């Protein structure tokens, strides 16, 4: 995983609560067997008409948000299915940071696993940020994970909290499996003390 330390990029607003993973990446696109190439299907039903034409009123289709890499949204972002295709699609589209007032558990974890930073800010900060993004075309946000800040020059400044282990894992771009395998002795010892009920399936 690529380490995440600091990112500056264009912010796009998705002013909704409960953006579920079925909206982020509809099920007809879950049949690929690769981790890449999902960006073209991001928010598919919101982004495109049934004929595959871009819907001009959807925020990411507006020219001012082309090239956005920071997505600002409301409560409970990423609720629903456990599909990791959701953070894969966001990342592949070009997003590196999400800023929302809360996240669903599985989605949050899936983001961290993929180097996509999920920043949590208070609802009033989100409201201010959404307003600012709307009022200031081309607004770039700088998200600094070492200092845990979100900034837009003089216009916006906020600090955010993040679990220290998850933060470290993003900062260092760890391979979690490699880390776990360092505990091989402990896993083996556990297995010897706690034999699991084994089944032979035919």
């Amino acid at each position, binding site marked *: 995983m690529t380490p995440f330390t600091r990112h500056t990029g264009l912010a796009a607003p998705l002013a909704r*609560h*409960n953006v*579920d993973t*079925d*909206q982020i990446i*509809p*099920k*007809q696109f*879950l*049949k*690929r*067997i*690769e*981790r890449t190439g999902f960006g073209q299907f991001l928010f598919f*039903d919101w982004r495109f008409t*049934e004929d595959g034409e871009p819907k001009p009123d959807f925020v990411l289709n507006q020219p001012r948000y082309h090239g956005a890499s920071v997505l600002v949204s*409301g*409560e*409970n972002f990423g*609720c*629903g*299915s*456990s*599909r*990791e295709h959701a*953070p894969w699609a966001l990342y592949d589209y070009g997003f590196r940071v999400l800023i929302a007032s*809360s996240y*669903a*558990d*599985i989605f949050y*974890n*899936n983001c961290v*696993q*993929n180097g996509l930073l999920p920043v949590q800010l208070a609802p009033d900060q989100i409201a201010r940020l959404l307003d600012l993004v709307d009022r200031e075309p081309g607004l770039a946000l700088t998200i600094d994970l070492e200092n845990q800040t979100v900034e837009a020059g003089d216009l916006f400044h906020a600090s955010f909290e993040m*679990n220290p*282990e998850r933060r470290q894992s993003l900062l260092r771009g760890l391979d*979690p*499996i490699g880390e*776990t*395998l360092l*505990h091989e002795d*402990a*896993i083996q010892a*556990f*297995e010897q003390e*706690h034999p*699991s*009920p*084994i*089944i*032979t*399936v*035919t």
Partner: protein
Amino acid sequence: MAPQTLFEKIWSRHVVRDAQPALLYIDRHYVHEVTSPQAFEGLRQAGRTVRRPDLTIAVMDHNVPTSDRSLPIQDAVARKQMDQLEQNCREFDVPLWNLHHPEQGIVHIIGPDMGFTLPGMTIVCGDSHTSTHGALGALAFGIGTSEVEHVLATQTLWQHRPNTLEVRFVGKKPPGTTAKDMILALIRAIGIAGATGSVIEYTGEAVRALSMEERMTLCNMSIEAGARAGMISPDETTVAYLASRPYAPKGDAFASAQDAWLALATDPGAHFDQIVEIDLRQLEPMVTWGTNPEMSAPISGRVPDPADESDAVRRDMVAQALAYMDLPPNTPLEGIPIQRVFIGSCTNGRLEDLERAAKIIAGRQVAPGVRAMAVPGSGRVKRSAEAMGLDQVFRDAGFEWREPGCSLCLGMNDDILSPGERCASTSNRNFEGRQGRGSRTHLLSPEMAAAAAITGVLTDYRKLLEEVQA
């Protein structure tokens, strides 16, 4: 020792490395075709193996066709994903129940039904409805594909300790209401993020009175309240259920396991981080009217009016949902016309669900213009239902009787709605487009779905029961 919850007992017995997050041992790993290909590919690229194929079981369920299995699969991309699972399981020695295996079906139906899921286990699967298995007193939760790869490689997971939430159902469940109504009422009360960060334990006399299959319906939708997992302390109902499962321990092993299972139950006086009480005494059959599972009401109720919402954000959400659902404010729920009916899914695709639905439709006909499907959750459920003649009841009424799979719950195969179609569905999510682009989903119990099929409109099924008695 201080009294402990079921969750605490299972958690503490699976900690390999006590840290924050803790390294947790996983007893059972269920794998399916949609969320696993990239995990196996990751193993391959890193030159790693599956550590415990003997604790891993793979099935095909999400994108399998539910039509005639003797025909070739039409969807080339879906077929590739199934072929890939076949190849991965061969290469990594993982047992697989493929499309043509007699026991093939939905992973959350098969696991408990076959006795792979046992009390006290830690269970994961790359699917959010893994919470279903908590009905047996297991700690079971959904994970993403990176974590699937992690469990395949190490049989462990790093987990932050969740909060514990006791959902205490107060009073008896009124006759004619179901586990589906209990869980929809809970989600309506606490919201779709109401249990985020928590593991729920369901308690109360109404929970004790539920059958195992009803308990699975309850635990299944824990994730729809945002919960990490949902669970129920093992009791005599749990033990009796496990006694007849093909892969559960047998003989002396069963006798000794049984005591250990019962001892897992939450101790009297154990502490929960949070407690929510849900009064069941006024419970009615529930049905959703909106685009997430908290947007529901009793069947005697009406669609809300956004104008009644004092909070601006909430007002917008209700208005957006009603626009998508094409429902005017204040519409009575009873009487809303539907074009499709789906009875199935990991929520309500078990034998008892089919039996209860069959009672409503027996001797009646599906309303003209309605297409109704019954999709058994697994090969075993289908065979058992057919042995009871239920397939004939469904077919005689005009239902399609299909092969096992996730089907119309998420519409990854051909079983989808056309834009604008409205479906009475026993599944678990009514998100926009969930059952097909532009689809409109009303979640409800199998009894309610059956009644809607017969009348062609959302109906309080208890009225059809009265007709039978009268």
